[in-house]
Every structure is written in structure tokens, then in C-alpha cells.
């Protein structure tokens, strides 16, 4: 047994100790998920630019195929084809508002990953925990394919495939397959697969539970097998396209990219794609035969195929849009799967909100009216009516509201404004509002243009095979 296997065993043990109260054993779920023989096969890489901080430290870790940006420390961990984006972290001198506390940031924030293992996971944003504002920690945690740890410090947790924890500190929790949690702070919870939970204590509480048998067609995961289903097939079928962009050193886009837009060299773009001004296409995004209007973005693990996005569209990490016409200012949440057909297209009216982890999979044309909020599993018009409400109607809810498997308590107005504020903030951070005349409103779309990438390699053989040497990268 080499050092990498010993490390993996210890990580699994740490997670199991944390989750003992929930009687969870992570080993049968993950032992074969991290391909130990492939940990030498892929380089890791990091971005450098004049517009981003640079402080990366790696110690006793496997980093195969993973990408790093900004400020991040990784120790005693295994990362397989992950993205760790430390470019939205707080800076020394910033102030953080939490309820009535206006908290000064005493030093630059870091992402600190310890004793954890991740497969194809995205780690991004910044710690929203007022108790740990300078340290976005992730320890004793395992996450699986296409999970998102977004602004969510974690201690002793397990995340199933296509799960997302967003702006939530979690301790000793299991996040089920395809579940989305945005709840501020959670501990000792076992979140069942297919749960979409958005809670702001004292303001609102939204819960939707997928019919589990139907969800299994899209994503299914149990001990001893790899994640399966339509979502996995969809991304696996496009894996080779990504292989090419990772194998080639210099890659040039095959079309004109506006000077105010950013197309990451680790994105896949297939003909005939056009992108407008202030567009952001992140690494590991996949665009094919589509138009992205001014200010639209395609974040990590987004797939946009045969679709037209009118502009100022937020497509959150892992969102997939196929054969769709999407109006202006539409938000498509994390890991959503919007699947039209060439003859049966999906259209989404302007300013609609597609909740995180929504599946729209249609065999007949479907039109979502403007200004609607949609959640859950939608396969036809009847489903749409059962899983949507106009934003104007939702804003009138003052106490409680239920519809099918969706439960809502609190102020609809607060819920809507929380989403709208966040959408505005994301567009702002991504540079959608950049004005080239006065250079105002710079965001990722502009700052990412001056990015170079360096690669680092693991030990190819021997005791430390698959692990990287201790590396410190600073300006």
C-alpha cells in the first residue's frame, strides 16, 4: 500500500468518525470512485494574472486534473478533476455585514482544504460564516461527481453526486444525491436525495422533494456503483471533447471573442457559437452551436447546446441548457437540466427564475411565461403548472403556501427579492455590466482575459506515486 492509498483510507476513516451518529460508512461509496491508478495521469494547473491574488500551497495531496486560482491551501487531501476557485475571497480591510454585525476582515481570506477527498467537485465563492470569515475551511469531507461546495465551510460531511451546498456552513451532514441546500448553518442532518431546500431563518423556508423513483432515471447512486443516469451519461458523452482542450498547450478560439468578454481556454466551444460583449465562459463549460447575448455567463460545468440566450443570463455552476430559447435576465440555478428537443424546443420568458436543481425534460414544445419561478421535475405543460408560480403571485405570499411536493413558509416577497438581489450580484461580479467607455463595472469577464496557466505534476512512481510534492506558489 502506497502513501496515496494510506491517505485515502485515513480520509474515509475521518469522515466515518464524523458521521458515526448517522451510521454512515463512506468507504463502499467512494473507494472505487477515485481512480487511484489515474492520479498520476493528469496534471494539475493554476491560473496567474495581474488581477488575482496568488497564494497556493499544496502538501501531501493528490491533485490530478484539478484547477486552482487565487488563495488556497490543500493538505492531506485527494482532488480528482476539481475546480478550486479562490478568486471571490474577501480581502483584508473588507467589511462583512451579518445581521447587526459589521465585521472587519483582518486578513486575506483563504480556502483551506484538509483531510478531504473530492471527485469533479467545484469549490468557489467565499465563506459566509460570520464565525470564520478569513478561513473558508473544508475538512474531513468527501464529495462526489459534480458536487458544488459554494461559499460553504464544511467539517465532516459527505456530498452525493450532483449535490450543492450553497452559502451554508455544514457539520457532520450527508447531502444526498442531487440535493441542493442553502440554509445558513446545518449540522448532523441526513439530507435525502432530491431535496431542494432554501431557507433564510426568520424570512422564508422553501422545500421541494423529488419523487425518488423518477429522479433515479436522471441520477442514481448507491454503494458499490458509479453514479448512473441521464445526467451522468450526458456529461460522460462529452468527456472526450474536454480531453482535447486539456491535451493541447496553446488553443485559440475559432471565432471572434469581443474584447470585453472572456472565453476560458479550458472551455469547449463547438461551431457555430457566438458570444456577445461582457460574456463570461468559465473553464470546463461546454458551448455548442449557441448564442450567448451580452452579459450572459456559462459557469463551470455548464453545457449550452443549440440554444439562444438573449443576454444577462446567469447559468449557475453545472446548469445544462439544450435546445432552448432563453429570455433576458433569466436565472438558471445550479445543476439544472433543461432539455428541449430540436422539434420541441423549450422557451423561457424573460426574468424567470429556474430554481437550482430543476429538471425540465420535454417531448413536446414548452413555453415558460416571463416572470415565473419554476422548480422540480417538469416534463409537460401539466407539470409546469404544478411546479411553477408567477413571481408576482409568489411575492404576495405572507405566511405559507404548498403546491404538490413543494412547501413554502414565510414571506414570498423576501424570497423573490433574495433571489433577484443575488442574480444582480452575480451579473455584477461576472462583469455583465462592464462599461468600456469609462472602464466601470469590471468583473470576471474582463479580469480573466489576462490569465496564464501553469501546470504541476505528481510523482510518477514510487512511495508517493500520484501525490504531488510540497509546493508553495506565491508572487
Amino acid at each position, binding site marked *: 500500500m502506497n502513501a496515496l492509498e494510506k491517505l485515502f483510507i485515513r480520509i474515509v476513516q475521518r469522515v466515518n468518525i464524523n458521521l458515526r451518529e448517522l451510521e454512515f460508512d463512506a468507504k463502499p461509496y467512494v473507494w472505487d470512485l477515485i481512480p487511484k491508478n489515474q492520479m498520476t495521469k493528469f496534471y494539475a494547473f493554476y491560473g496567474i494574472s495581474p488581477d488575482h491574488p496568488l497564494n497556493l500551497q499544496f502538501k501531501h495531496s493528490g491533485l490530478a486534473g484539478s484547477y486552482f486560482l487565487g488563495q488556497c491551501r490543500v493538505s492531506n487531501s485527494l482532488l480528482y478533476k476539481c475546480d478550486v476557485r479562490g478568486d471571490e475571497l474577501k480581502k483584508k480591510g473588507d467589511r462583512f455585514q451579518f445581521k447587526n454585525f459589521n465585521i472587519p476582515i483582518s486578513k486575506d481570506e483563504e480556502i483551506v482544504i484538509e483531510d478531504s477527498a473530492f471527485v469533479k467537485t467545484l469549490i468557489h465563492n467565499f465563506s459566509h460564516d460570520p464565525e470564520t470569515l478569513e478561513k473558508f475551511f473544508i475538512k474531513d469531507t468527501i464529495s462526489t461527481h459534480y458536487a458544488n461546495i459554494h461559499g460553504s465551510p464544511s467539517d465532516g460531511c459527505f456530498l452525493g453526486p450532483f449535490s450543492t451546498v450553497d452559502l451554508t456552513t455544514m457539520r457532520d451532514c450527508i447531502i444526498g444525491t442531487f440535493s441542493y441546500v442553502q440554509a445558513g448553518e446545518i449540522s448532523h442532518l441526513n439530507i435525502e436525495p432530491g431535496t431542494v431546500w432554501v*431557507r433564510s431563518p426568520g424570512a422564508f423556508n422553501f*422545500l421541494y*422533494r423529488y419523487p425518488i423513483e423518477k429522479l433515479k432515471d436522471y441520477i442514481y447512486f448507491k454503494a458499490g456503483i458509479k453514479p448512473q443516469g441521464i445526467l451522468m451519461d450526458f456529461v460522460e458523452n462529452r468527456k472526450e471533447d474536454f480531453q482535447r482542450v486539456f491535451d493541447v498547450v496553446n488553443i485559440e478560439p475559432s471565432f471572434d471573442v469581443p474584447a470585453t468578454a472572456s472565453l476560458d481556454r479550458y472551455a469547449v466551444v463547438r461551431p457555430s457559437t457566438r458570444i456577445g460583449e461582457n460574456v463570461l465562459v468559465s473553464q470546463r463549460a461546454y458551448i455548442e452551436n449557441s448564442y450567448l447575448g451580452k452579459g450572459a455567463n456559462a459557469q463551470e460545468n455548464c453545457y449550452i447546446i443549440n440554444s439562444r440566450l438573449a443576454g444577462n443570463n446567469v447559468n449557475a455552476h453545472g446548469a445544462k441548457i439544450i435546445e432552448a430559447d432563453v429570455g433576458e435576465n433569466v436565472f438558471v440555478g445550479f445543476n439544472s437540466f433543461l432539455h428541449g428537443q430540436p422539434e420541441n424546443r423549450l422557451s423561457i420568458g424573460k426574468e424567470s427564475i429556474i430554481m437550482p436543481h430543476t429538471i425540465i425534460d420535454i417531448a413536446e414544445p414548452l413555453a415558460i411565461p416571463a416572470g415565473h419561478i419554476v422548480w422540480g421535475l417538469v416534463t409537460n405543460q401539466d407539470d409546469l403548472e404544478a411546479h411553477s408560480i408567477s413571481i408576482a403571485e409568489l411575492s404576495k405570499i405572507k405566511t405559507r403556501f404548498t403546491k404538490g411536493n413543494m412547501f413554502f*413558509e414565510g414571506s414570498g416577497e423576501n424570497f423573490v427579492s433574495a433571489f433577484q438581489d443575488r442574480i444582480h450580484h452575480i451579473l455584477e461580479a461576472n462583469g455583465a455590466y462592464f462599461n468600456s467607455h469609462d472602464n466601470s463595472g469590471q468583473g470576471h469577464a474582463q479580469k480573466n482575459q489576462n490569465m496564464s496557466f501553469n501546470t504541476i505534476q505528481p510523482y510518477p512512481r514510487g512511495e508517493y506515486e500520484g501525490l504531488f510534492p510540497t509546493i508553495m506558489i506565491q508572487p
Partner: protein
Amino acid sequence: MDEYFIKDLMVPISEYATVPVGATLFEAYLALEKAQEKYDHDKYRHRAILVLDKNNRVIGKVGQLDVLRALEPKNENFKMFEDISKYEFSSQFILSLREQYLMQDEPLSNICKKGAQIKVEDLMRAPTEGEYVEENTTLNTAIHQLVRGSHMALLVTRNNEIVGILRLADVFAAIFHTMKKCEIDNQ
């Protein structure tokens, strides 16, 4: 309170309602009725049934709430309420959902059938560590155990054998009897 001893206040197990494991809910009720008939009518009524294993050892207790809980509808909606309770909805919200769904189901439908079908072991609760008290323990300690555990009764033991039940109602009565006596003495 020094004049009271646990063994004086407890109900001997021979006078308490007991059923063997495997008995139905209806049989448990008959046992309760029978025990009550034998019991002094001036005293508080029994409210629970003890479940005995084949060696006549107490393995569980069935209280009134356990019975009502067992008779509640156990359909998919019921499970859903259990599940969503952990997602921090208010108790009023859960209650309103329950009322909404209970209107679709008659809670006491098929009560005769349920009474014959439900086995006591399916609704009994095993006594916890804090529910046992030695018969020679002071009453003050027993009161502390009742209060701390919010128990309706304690199982009284002698040499690890259960010999009786110390009921909250009897302890309560003893306390007020003492208070009343103090009042009279002070006059």
C-alpha cells in the same frame, strides 16, 4: 417527606396491568381494565400497561400517548410530515399541513381492526436507564428522576427485579398531603 418511602407509595407489580409480548392492543386494554377493577377505586387510575417477556421481565411500557400515536393514519403523507419536520418549518406550519391531510383520512377508521392487529411490541417503549429506581432510594431522589426525565412513572427494583411502579400521580398526592399536614400543624 421523610415519612414516605418508595415502597409505600409504589403500586406492586402484581396489581399493575401487564401483558405478554405478542399481545394485541385490544388485549392490552382488557388487561388495563381488569387491573383497574381489582385496584382500589379511590386511587388514581392506571394509565399504562407493562409488556413482559417470556421470563416475566419487563421489556416495555405502553402509555396512552403511545396508543393514540399508533392509531394515527400511517399513510405516505404521515411519513412526509415526519421527514419535513427536520427542515426547520414552524410547528404551526406542520400542524396546518397535518390538519389539511387529516381531513382526507378518518383517524379512527377501522379502529376495531387496528385494535386486533397492532401488537404491543410495535408501540411499546423500552424503559430508559433513568426510569429505574431502587426501592430503598429516597423519595427526593425519585422526585428528581421524575422531574428530570419528565416521566409519568418509574419502575421500582429490588435486587434487579422489578417489584412495582412509582407513579407521578401518587408522588404528587403524597407531596400535597404533606403540605396540607404542615398547614394544619402550623395553625
